[in-house]
């Protein structure tokens, strides 16, 4: 049997499990994800930086991991929790087992405890800080560490995950040139953009508006990313400047929040966030309900939206703003993840819509 491991929440609850990944300890924000598939995408999604992710589906690791399904170059979660981790994958695409992968990439993994109880705690009491350890097996000590940790509020996590240097994806022949601000961009976003005839120049989060515009893009993309958007003054300022350029702008998740702050919207912290692949979102324009991939802890407040913005999509579970657009400028953003990965492809058409805006703008 695997060595013991402990998960302690700031509310004082402690879960005894077994270590299935890397060893050591870590502190993070405790969140849960309700997707039944897609653990590899979740592990490698930079938006999870700083977070301890608990999967609600009990069997994780069943189909192993493979190089194609990485959403970035490495895992970003600080610890990964599950009911039962599969020691041997079964899937024709698998190149490695999940346990080995976590060990290789230094992800602490814990299995074998009541993950549903943990989920319910987070749902009832809200997102909280937590500590995970395979070394410190003293409950009181671990709970104190979780409590003493300063947490993610006000912390700029983007600097840890953004690219160091600009890079380019897509063909030189592509119809559009997009400058994508990397706040922690997922690979499938790039794939979707390339699919829509885009050449994408991915630039570091701190790139200025002037530098971005100097690349002569047809459109600007503001990516997803981890953590609290409020400390990202540089990005908010850049977004504000870019919005005055008249270029089409598309933001996803953190990009959507940054855009909102740049245009005068207010944001709020969701009680326990949206993380899963099954949320219904109503698209006002078409009247359709789309099943979306979600991963956000912050949202744009619909009550204090500036006049220039209108809500285009809402989450039918809780009324949360899931999409907005500028009333005059070719600017729109989406809180959930149209690129899916993991999750349903229902919102893929939004990338097409971005291409359409660029086409119209160019004309």
């Amino acid at each position, binding site marked *: 049997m695997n060595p013991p491991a402990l998960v302690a929440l700031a509310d004082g609850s402690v879960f005894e499990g077994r270590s299935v990944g890397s060893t050591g300890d870590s502190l993070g924000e405790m969140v849960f994800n309700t997707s039944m*598939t897609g653990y590899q995408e979740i592990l490698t999604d930079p938006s999870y930086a700083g977070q301890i992710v608990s999967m609600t589906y009990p069997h994780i690791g069943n*189909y192993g991991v493979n190089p194609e399904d990485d959403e970035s170059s490495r895992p970003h979660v600080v610890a990964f929790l599950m009911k039962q981790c599969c020691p041997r994958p079964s899937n024709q695409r698998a190149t490695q087992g999940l346990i080995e992968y976590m060990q290789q990439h230094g992800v602490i993994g814990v299995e074998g405890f009541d993950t549903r109880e943990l989920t319910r705690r987070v749902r009832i009491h809200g997102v909280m800080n937590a500590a995970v350890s395979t070394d410190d097996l003293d409950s009181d000590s671990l709970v104190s560490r979780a409590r003493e940790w300063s947490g993610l509020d006000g912390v700029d996590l983007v600097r840890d995950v953004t690219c160091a240097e600009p890079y380019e994806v897509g063909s030189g022949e592509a119809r559009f040139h997009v400058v994508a601000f990397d706040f922690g961009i997922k690979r499938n976003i790039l794939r979707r953009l390339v699919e829509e005839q885009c050449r994408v120049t991915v630039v570091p989060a701190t790139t200025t508006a002037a530098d971005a515009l100097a690349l002569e893009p047809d459109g600007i993309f503001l990516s997803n990313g981890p953590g609290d958007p409020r400390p990202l003054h540089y990005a908010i300022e850049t977004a504000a400047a870019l919005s005055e350029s008249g270029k089409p702008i598309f933001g996803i998740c953190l990009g959507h929040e940054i855009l909102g702050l740049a245009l005068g919207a207010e944001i709020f912290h969701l009680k326990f966030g949206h993380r899963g*692949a099954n949320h219904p979102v109503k698209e006002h324009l078409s009247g359709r309900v789309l099943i979306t991939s979600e991963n956000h802890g912050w949202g744009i407040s619909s009550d204090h939206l500036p006049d220039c913005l209108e809500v285009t999509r809402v989450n039918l579970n809780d009324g949360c703003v899931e999409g907005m657009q500028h009333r005059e400028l070719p600017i729109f953003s989406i809180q959930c993840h149209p690129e899916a990965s*993991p999750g349903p492809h229902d919102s893929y058409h939004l990338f097409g819509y971005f291409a359409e805006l660029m086409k119209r703008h160019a004309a």
Partner: protein
Amino acid sequence: MAPEDSPIVPKRTDIQKIMLIGSGPIVIGQACEFDYSGTQACKALREEGYEVVLVNSNPATIMTDPELAERTYVEPITAAVCEAIIDRERPQALLPTVGGQTALNTAVELAERGVLECFGVELIGAKLEAIRMAEDRELFKRAMDDAGLAMPTGYFVRTLEEAQDRQRELGYPSIVRPSYTLGGSGSGIAYNAEEYERIVRYGLDLSPITEVLVETSVLGWKEYELEVMRDANDNVVIICSIENFDPMGVHTGDSITVAPAQTLSDKEYQVMRDAAIRVIRCIGVDTGGSNIQFAVDPASGEMMVIEMNPRVSRSSALASKATGFPIARIAAKLAVGYTLDEIPNDITRETPASFEPTIDYVVTKIPRWAFEKFPQTPDILDTQMRSVGETMAIGRTFQESLQKGLRSLETDRAGWGADKDDFDPLVVSDKEVRENLLNPSSQRLFYIKVAMAKGFSVEEIHQLTRVDPWFLDRLYEIFELEQRLSSADVLDDSQLLRQAKEYGFSDRQLAFLQGCDERSVRRARESHGIRPVYKTVDTCAAEFEAHTPYHYSTYDRENESVTSDRKKIMILGGGPNRIGQGIEFDYCCVHACYALKEDGFETIMVNSNPETVSTDYDTANKLYFEPLTVEDVLNITDREQPEGVIVQFGGQTPLNLALELEAEGVPIIGTSPGNIDLAEDRERFGNLLRELDILQPENGMARSLKEAKEVAARIGYPVLVRPSYVLGGRAMVTVYNERGLDTYMATAISVSPEHPVLIDRFLDGAQEFDVDVVADGSDVLIGGIMQHIEHAGVHSGDSACVLPPFDVGGENLRTLETHTRALALSLNVVGLMNVQYAIQEGTVYVLEVNPRASRTVPFVSKATGRPLAKIAARVMTGRKLRDMGLAEQFVPRHISVKEAVLPFSKFPGSDGILGPEMKSTGEVMGIGDDFGEAFLKAQLGAGSALPASGCVFISVNDRDKEGVLPIARQLKAAGFELIATNGTQEFLAAHGVAAERVLKVHEGRPHVEDAIRSHVVKLVVNSPLDEQSQHDDFAVRRAAIMNGIPYTTTLAGAKAAAAGIQALQRSEMSVHALQDYLREGGG
């Protein structure tokens, strides 16, 4: 979102009255899941203010309760009957998608005949075009091609020659599927030319349009199903994904299936999801649910579409129970114009139905087979469905869920082995193991276990079974743990004990492995504080608060089942359906929930059958989806502390637990388990009858072959022999001499001091009766007296019966009543009781007393309008019949006939004769103003349309020759042409009835079988010889079964058929709603 508190306005106001077709009798491939779906649909539509007109011939359904619809027609489900109902009721719409294939086919026929157009009835849910496209494989294939989705290569052929032409392209193995048969009837896998020819011939025979699909095989590919819903706004959601443990090659209904899918990565799952959405859109199912099957090549990941059902299905019922998302209910609302986002999710209340449920547990469905009932049919699983029921189990892990499922099956297994029935690795050869891994059967899972014990590697087992290694690895983990559990002192090792419980090991398995009794394990477990907790099925993996207490047990930390201070009654259900224990018992359990809810109790349902209404989350106040074992039930009673537990409604399943539960202090209400037991105990019961001066057929009990011979000799042959404590007359036979007794005792059963056999005098030619009553300890309410149409010797579950009795003297009836009252009072029955009687030459014998719900309770309740199970439930909580104003028996003016529906066509090689062992899977009810009409309707409902003219084939044994004469005369007078084989023909001729002679099978061609196959013969009267039926008789009956020609094997049946034919010739059948019958009858 739908305004919850504002007055409900139907979304579509242009329709007010909606017709809904049920699925008729329970047959293999179409079981009570359609009662569950139909009941939900009825409720959902009425909630929206629509009037519902319901047609269903199955009296044991909840949907045919007169309160469930405005107009309930318990009439045969045929296009002609439905047309008459439409004419009478003038509905504006027809919802064809909640009554299985039967409803869908009937709706298509109504549309094609122009009936719907003529009366202005709109098909809602699925339009004719969509149904056709989904059902017609050629159109479906074309649609899939257009949508860019792959399907296995296949061709429709109408002759053997054509089939052989196509064979080269397909290669072996190839799949053969007859067109338009239910549950894959007649389909098979051919590995060589000989098999190919045989299966194609058989399939062509079986297909009503003489057509089979021959297909390239995707045998061994992984099999998946997605449950999809679509609304009028084209919103599509996936409710559930299901992965089959058994790969392609075994019918889904016969496969162990697991939700959600386990071995698809998100990338692959999303591709499948996209494909499913494309399928439902391109087929054009406007609104409602569909089930789409896929096959995936485990080597390349290539995906193919296998088929779709444009309606709710067995899988959608499973998906509803697995996720908490009520597919049929939502489908009904979508059909009247709501969109998914306008319908609230009942479980979370605050979120809408337009989402995709996510689950945080594993659901395993395991089929229940009945091969033991059809010994001529080999235990092999292929593309034709053979299971008669299923069980579902929920666990936090696959290991736990599988083991819970296996102990829910009630096949006397304690889980995945670790019980006395495990194969012995020293006895079973490697060869036998390999064969049984290669060829799927009901026992394959246990062969996997013995393979592991014999050292086969997971890889080897995978190669042979093609079961995904993920599942095999989990099995291996259970296997490994079992090894540790048998060597260690588990009862002292709390950590190991806990691990065993987390892996789903039952106390019974642990007791077996430790060589102690179950009670010791229980005590040890409790002393370590190891008790299960109850989690909630909430559609959302705890992301939102759940408001429906739908629970399952697991060995985890946090318990979510909140117990209330209310007075609680717990009702134990019947577990998986099987022959002998089906929907009738679930009906009683549901009624108990309804009645006691009305009386202000908190009702708690415990059951493991996903097909049922009882396991709908809103039937009882609280639902525990759990195995019905002593351990699992005690765990719940410990937590809930109910005022009372009802064991007499769920059939044999809860009764088997009653004594042990009572010994553990569980408050069983109603008739005491001791008295229930007394009625089953031949010796004690015999004494009681003597005290009451009631006769029973001479009988005895034997604990060895020698004793059996002595008893039989004393009683005199023929005798009825059977093992004690069985339901449905399992292994019961009529034995005519000592040689027969030898054979039976040697082959059919094992007799031992613990398992004696019962031997009864066989009352030849006696008439049988069933009496259902409710008693409260002081009064006895006779619910109904039914007369069997078949004579004694045919199991009551297989015999047609009529209420009120049609052919018995008043004095005898009074004797039945007096005896029944005396029995009920002396057994101190509180609740239901069923007594079976035989009257032979004016003497009344008691055959059997069952102080519990019987199979006929729903039938009697429908016939008389008296809800016996509800009354009984109330009586059990202390209410008195007298106070409820229910002292007098009510005898309706109309005649009701119940007919059994038999599964012989699904069991190649089985003989279609009725005997003391029950073989039927379901029943129908026919109601009429006279016996003939009621019988005719019952026959029609059972799928055997009596002819108005044509040719009747008669061949009877010598005993029956005299008796068949008046019937032959009557048929002749009715204008029928008679044909008969040699002996019968001569006998008839000698008595002045002309019949044409037809050759027996061995006499040359064309012979009688040809006449049946070519549908020249419209009715077969064929009584078997006294002992083993001869080859000819067998061939005749098989031909009749496979060609759907009505046939009877008894004179009584023939006589009834003649009466039915008379009614048919006299007039057109009239249709009446149950509500009218009951009003007219004054019930």
